[in-house]
């Protein structure tokens, strides 16, 4: 494993790489017997981050920790927790970092509102611009540069 650091350096723009094993994600022995509950577990897992991975959710990750979290999620569901309660349980233990869908608490509202706010601002600006364009008096089609205007002024003055 001495070379892991070098390997990092060695890699380039490849889409989504993971260092962990090839055994993909959810294992057959983890799957719950109740398909509805399993579907809920998958849904929840997709929004939780695998903390030791680079940028993966626990549903897709092969890391040991991701497996532990997947099993934990299923345990909570079997114990009768709702989806929100299950997520809250995980967040209590691992912190907000585990959420791939950030909350709207505190300053995070800014993140969620950024898109709509910018859209509104852009629309307002565009509205004024377009109104200006449509009501603008025919611009004087003087394609003259400043120098030329200056010269013209001189000529007229003389």
């Amino acid at each position, binding site marked *: *494993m001495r*070379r892991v650091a*070098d*390997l*990092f*350096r*060695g*890699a*380039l*723009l*490849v*889409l*989504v*790489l*993971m*260092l962990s*094993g*090839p*055994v*993909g994600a*959810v*294992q*057959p022995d983890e*799957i719950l017997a109740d398909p509805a509950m399993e579907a809920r577990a998958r849904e929840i897992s*997709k*929004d939780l*981050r695998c903390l030791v*991975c*680079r*940028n*993966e*959710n626990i549903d*897709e990750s092969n890391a040991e920790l991701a497996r532990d979290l997947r099993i934990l999620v299923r345990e909570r569901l079997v114990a009768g927790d709702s989806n929100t309660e299950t997520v809250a349980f995980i967040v209590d233990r691992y*912190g*907000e*970092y585990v*959420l*791939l*869908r*950030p909350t709207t608490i*505190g*300053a*995070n509202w800014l*993140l*969620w509102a*950024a*898109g709509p706010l*910018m*859209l509104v601002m*852009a*629309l307002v600006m*565009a509205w004024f*611009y*377009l109104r200006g*364009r*449509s009501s603008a008096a*025919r*611009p004087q*089609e003087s*394609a003259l540069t400043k120098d030329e205007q200056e010269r013209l002024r001189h000529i007229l003055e003389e």
Partner: protein
Amino acid sequence: MITELGHFALVLAFMAAIVQMVVPMVGAQKRWSSWMSVAEPAATLQLLMTGFAFAALMHAFVTSDFSLRVVTMNSHSAKPMLYKISGLWGNHEGSMLLWVLIVSLFGAMAAWFGGNLPPTLRARVLSVQAAIGVAFYGFILFTSNPFLRLAVPPFDGEDLNPLLQDPGLAFHPPFLYLGYVGLSMSFSFAVAALIEGRVDAAWARWVRPWTLAAWIFLTIGIALGSWWAYYELGWGGFWFWDPVENASFMPWLLAAALLHSAIVVEKREALKSWTILLAILAFGFSLIGTFIVRSGLLTSVHAFATDPERGVFILIILAVFTGGALVLFAARASVMEARGVFSMVSRESALVVNNILLAVSSFVVFFGTLWPIVAEMAFDRKLSVGPPFFNSAFTPFMVVLGLVLPIGAMLPWKRARLGRVIWSLRYAFALAVALALLVWAMQTGRSALGPVGVFLGTWVVSGSALDLWTRTGRSGGRLKRLVRLPRADWGKSAAHAGLGITIFAIAGLTAWEQEDIRVVQLDEPFTVGAYELTLTGVEQLRGPNYFTTMGTVVLARDGKVLTQLHPEKRVYPVAQMPTTEAAIDNGVTRDVYVVIGDQQDNGGWTVRTYIKPFANWVWGGALLMALGGLLSLSDRRFRVAAGARKSVQQTVPAE
């Protein structure tokens, strides 16, 4: 020896770039034509020298010269030739060399084909382009030199990251870089125009082909990367909203916006300053992408050269170029007053709406990508912004874009009647609604995603077809006229239809995917969806530089054998890394995607099977977009425009 020559050539290219940056700029300022004319030979020399350096490094990789540090760390004598070659850019130093090679290539192209630009503009464009080159030559030579030797060369190399040993590496990065770096051309034109203080239709006509070319490359590069991830990753994801992916997606969105706003400048002499700003931002986002990729500031699934010193260097480049250009913009933007007058309902306004949607959605991606850093620094909160955020915050913009696209594309310039255009699209709308309802009725109890995707896809594709058809006029002989329509018209419709197809495919793939995970015993068939699969054997084999566990899965439907699939699990001993090689049966309406896992205690094997409907349409749509761009690029207008410019230089562009 060749290595030293390569190193020397790179230093020479650096010198040539410095000369090309300074002399023509001074010449343009003072109107000294002899100084301005230095630009062209300097650009040619720069390309030749960088090309030689690149070839020298390639030689080192191909001959496995392990006295070079970069070769030792990223290559191995047993590696197949294709990966020895593509391994050159499979690492930080080599990929930067590819980067500057492309910068100098674009510079030289502008020098060779820019003969009919006004001489001062040409000199300034080449000077700005050279300045970008200087920054990156400096970056390579001072922080990431690929030509460093090792005092004691090892016996063999450490091999390339196995995940990179894929034909994808041969094509994905070069295309992506051609796109990223291609945007430097639009940037150079924008800055040169700001210095010049003049932006007119001719300028837009000059900038558009470069932007279009960069956008085409970027489209292909992103699509290739997405496809590569799809088959290499092992569960068939195609887009992850990873910071590094976002880094390529933001410039793509802005370049798309720039393409459209440049049309308004070209045809209507409006939106000038906005277009300049977009050109600056598009390349700025490319630089931000480079920064994100190389600095390790953000946690990404992509493994990269992460080195604070390099990060700081790129940050300085980013600040100087983007910041400098924006300051220049703030100072000079007022000289570019708009001329064209148009009503609120017009093609111009529709293009403004297009630009708003593309630019704002691009900023949403930007905000989401950088928010974890902002939150940590400003609010001391360590949090993640992942795919669920982007899916909900970004997608609405694309839905609205899809809705307004067919209408906007058909609105006439200057003054339009909205009702009339919508009426002419009634068949497209009816078809889209009908298909969406049909799909809604056929699927049971699932999300609205599928039908919405079908509606948008059909609406955009049939709207684009209708757009083309209405251009053929009203009376007979329409088919003949259809064939003779300008290629730009065909390109526009093709690119728009490509977007529609991609929207449809992403929605369909997400909504209707089927997944099956189970432990499979040999020769015991199992069913997934309409398909029957049997694992008939598992073998241990040896590849050139890896060991593999290869399963054989027989795929059948209705008792008829379709094909044999060979999913693999590989281990690369030198890199000590395992990889999965999924086996995919590609189909028009679906892919069957099979992955083999570990052997279980009871002798069975973990097998994952996915049915992925319309998977290939995702990239098919992207390729159609690129093809549309190519058609548009080959339009007569661009070829003739260059020559025609001189004669129309002094006239007021037609309105």
